Every structure is written in structure tokens, then in C-alpha cells.
């Protein structure tokens, strides 16, 4: 499977619709402190299934919805969509090069819903689709800010868990 793009709306500081292309090779993301770089990383974690608000620096899951700014009111809905490209064997079947979009949506006070290409699905369907891809939300394939030294500083069993999620 390939992960090809990320689209956000109403997610943390990205209140306006935003699209990030995930092209082959290396893509740098830069900007001053507090401008939203780690929020993009959180969006990726979230759409890949992150279940814990703490894993996204929040106290409750509604904390990922745009809370407003000096000039803009808060929103009640946040959406993040992840573009994927086959081959994928299941539960969604995609031929090589065939594209689909996983969408996670949260409504304030009502929790998250999931869709693949507009069709309602359950969180575990998305989890299965990505599990093979070693790209789950808690995987070491996302190394959060301040986390890289943990690979060395953890106990053997913690280290194994950290690294296994990437393999």
C-alpha cells in the first residue's frame, strides 16, 4: 500500500481546508514554533486510528476540533482524510495503483465516525487495512517530538513494543 496525501479541515489549528501531498522520497516540513507542524503529525496519527487523546496532547478527543482564535469562532466538526493507493488485499481490495480515501470525522460531543470513499465503515476495518502496512497510529513509524531517545532509554520489553509496531 502507498499513502499518498493528507487533507484536513477544522483539525486543531488547521481550521481551513488544507491538503498535503505525500510524494515519494523525502518531504521537509518547516516553520516557526507553534505554527502547526506537529499538529499535522497529530492529524496523520488520528486518521490512522489513534484512540487516546493523550497521544495527541489533549485531555479529551474533542480537543482536536478547532477551538477558535482571536478572530475566528470555534468549530464543531473536524475531518481528516488519508489518500491510499493499492495494492491492498483487504478488507478493502485495491488493485495496484487504484486509489481510495479513508476519512475520520468528529462532531463535538458525538465522537468519531469513519468512511472509506464515502461508505460508512468501522474503525477496525481501517485498522485492518493499515495493519499490514506497519503504519498504525501508535507505530514507531511516527516518531513524535522528543521521542527518538526513548528507543535507547526504554527497558528491553518497552523497546521491543516501540519497534515492533514499525515491523
Amino acid at each position, binding site marked *: 500500500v502507498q499513502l499518498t496525501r493528507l487533507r484536513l479541515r477544522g483539525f486543531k489549528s488547521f481550521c481551513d481546508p488544507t491538503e498535503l501531498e505525500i510524494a515519494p*522520497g*523525502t518531504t*521537509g516540513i518547516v516553520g516557526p514554533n507553534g505554527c502547526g507542524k506537529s499538529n499535522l503529525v497529530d492529524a496523520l496519527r488520528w486518521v490512522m486510528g489513534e484512540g487516546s487523546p493523550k497521544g495527541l496532547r489533549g485531555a479529551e478527543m474533542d480537543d482536536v476540533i478547532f477551538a477558535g482564535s482571536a478572530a475566528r469562532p470555534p468549530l464543531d466538526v473536524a475531518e481528516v482524510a488519508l489518500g491510499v493507493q493499492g495494492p491492498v488485499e483487504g478488507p478493502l481490495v485495491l488493485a495496484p495503483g487504484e486509489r481510495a480515501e479513508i476519512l475520520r470525522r468528529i462532531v463535538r460531543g458525538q465522537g468519531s465516525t469513519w468512511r472509506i470513499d464515502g461508505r460508512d465503515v468501522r474503525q477496525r476495518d481501517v485498522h485492518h487495512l493499515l495493519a499490514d502496512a506497519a503504519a498504525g497510529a501508535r507505530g514507531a513509524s511516527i516518531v513524535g517530538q522528543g521521542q527518538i531517545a526513548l528507543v535507547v532509554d526504554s527497558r528491553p520489553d518497552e523497546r521491543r513494543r516501540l519497534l515492533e509496531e514499525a515491523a
Partner: protein
Amino acid sequence: ARERLLAVLAAVEGHFRRLFVQLFGGGRAHLRLAESDDPLTAGLELEAQPPGKRLAHVSLLSGGEKSLAGLALLMAFFLARPAPLCVLDEVDAALDDANVDRFTALLAETARVSGTRFLVVTHHPLTMARMDRLYGVTMAERGVSKLVSVELAEAVELRATA
């Protein structure tokens, strides 16, 4: 399943030992399963000795050395078993310039060999310079993030202003 796991770990170990020497310019490192347990659940023990130093607990390594060893281990996993995506959020924060240089060279090589796509959040101009492309995140309107494609010169500029 046990054989497959041991095979993957052997591949990771091979890459890790080589990458450690590449990043540290020498020395040696070792990754192995904790002896007493079932390989399917045993912990992963790590030893690392930078060149010219004597081996002791890895906890005694410096902040930069721990980052570098962690990155060698991470890249070893991607070489042994490529994943479609890897996201790195400021993993170069503790590295001095010489080590940023070695790390970014390794990153570029791993991307090429494994086909893994990398998203790399960074404040470091040397890292930016090695990326295939750059996106800038700005908050021209306070509290509202905006994403925009940028060139290297603009990217370096972005980090210096706020």
C-alpha cells in the same frame, strides 16, 4: 511464526550494526533478544559503544548519541521491512551539525533503497537542504495554520522569523 520473527530480527541486526558504524564513524553496537524468554515476547537488549570509548550502559550515552543510535535502529527496521510511510518530528533537535549531516545522508539513502516515503519536521537548515521538497507552515493569521510549498531559501527564512 517464530522462524519468521527471528529472520526479520537477524536482518534488522545486520543493518543496525552496519548503520551504527556508518553514523558514528566506527565503534560497535549489538541488538539481541533477552535470553531467558520466548522469542515471541522477549525484550530487545541494546549495547552500543561509540568509537574510542569503552562499552558501558547505553543510558550513559549523550543526548545526541542516543538520538543517533535510535535513528540507526529505526532505519535498520525500514531497510529490513519497508513501510509505506515514516514521519519524523524534530528527531535532529539534539544533533550537532556533523551528525545532522550523517543522519540526513542516511535518510536519503534509506528513502531510495526502501521506497518508504518520509515526512520530516525540522528546524535545521542542513536537514532542509537534503529534502526532495519542502512545505512551510505559517500562521500569518494568528491561531490559523496555513500550508504552502516553499523553496530552501524561503524555508530558512521562515525559521528565523515568527
